[in-house]
């Protein structure tokens, strides 16, 4: 249904013979989003079900990249870039190191899950049901504003250093504390 309308609008847009951005752009963005969403969800599912720790980490990498893709669709290019840099660059390496430092087997490991997987699945499914229902009730078919210009990096930095300066500073302190804390906790005495 949505597809059909998108298709029709795409054709009319092309008739006006300019580089159609509104109709087809949305169609492409939607296609891209759903591709990303499917990749993210499939990879996430594999991540929590795979028997191989390193594969799980690599699946997480796929999820994180896909999420970065959705940021781009939402016009948040800086967030996407940060996602890639911080998550893919830093956190993934940390996790891989964690895997290796704890001498987890790189290959298959049979005993990664608890026996009662269905309980966890039940809870997760329950939450998903509740959330989906309430999301649908609350937002229904609300649309995002059409004229989405990418939010410029400059605006982001401007607001960080003006409106959100206090949280920013607090975050800096938190990072410092976490750094020291991690060193203290992991130090070999």
């Amino acid at each position, binding site marked *: 249904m949505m597809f059909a309308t998108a298709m029709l609008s795409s054709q009319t847009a092309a008739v006006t013979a300019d580089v159609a951005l509104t109709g087809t752009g949305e169609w492409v963005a*939607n296609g891209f989003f759903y591709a990303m969403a499917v990749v993210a969800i499939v990879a996430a599912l594999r991540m929590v079900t795979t028997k191989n720790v390193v594969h799980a980490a690599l699946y997480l990498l796929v999820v994180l990249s896909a999420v970065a893709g959705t940021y781009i669709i939402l016009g948040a290019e800086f967030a996407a870039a940060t996602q890639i840099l911080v998550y893919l660059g830093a956190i993934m390496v940390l996790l891989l190191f964690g895997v290796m430092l704890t001498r987890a087997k790189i290959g298959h490991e049979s005993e990664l899950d*608890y026996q009662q*997987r269905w309980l966890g699945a039940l*809870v997760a499914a329950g939450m*998903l049901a509740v959330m989906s229902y309430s999301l649908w009730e609350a937002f229904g078919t609300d649309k*995002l504003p059409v004229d989405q210009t990418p939010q410029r990096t400059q605006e982001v930095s401007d607001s960080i250093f003006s409106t959100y300066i206090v949280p920013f500073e607090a975050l800096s302190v938190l990072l410092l504390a*976490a750094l020291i804390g991690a060193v203290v906790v992991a130090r070999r005495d």
Partner: protein
Amino acid sequence: MFLNQFLFLAAALFCIGIYGVLVRKNGVLVLMSIELILNAVNINLVAFGAYRGDIGGQVFALFVIAVAAAEVGVGLAIVLLIYRNRRSIDVAEANLLKG
């Protein structure tokens, strides 16, 4: 584009993360699942930011990313500590909370 398509994606990732936290034994895997949850939150933040035309959503997503980095650092440190003390990172064996 609907707002909800992003929110539903986030909800799905969130619940998958919850599932991972609940069923995984390996501490590192639990941390990964938490990353998934945080990412779901981030999608929500950015999506609402775009919905309301407010830059704040993105800013807070950035904050969350930074916090996540800290969280992974501390979390891994704890996992390492558990590993060093117990030669295992099975979180099931960490049951000191038992009454």
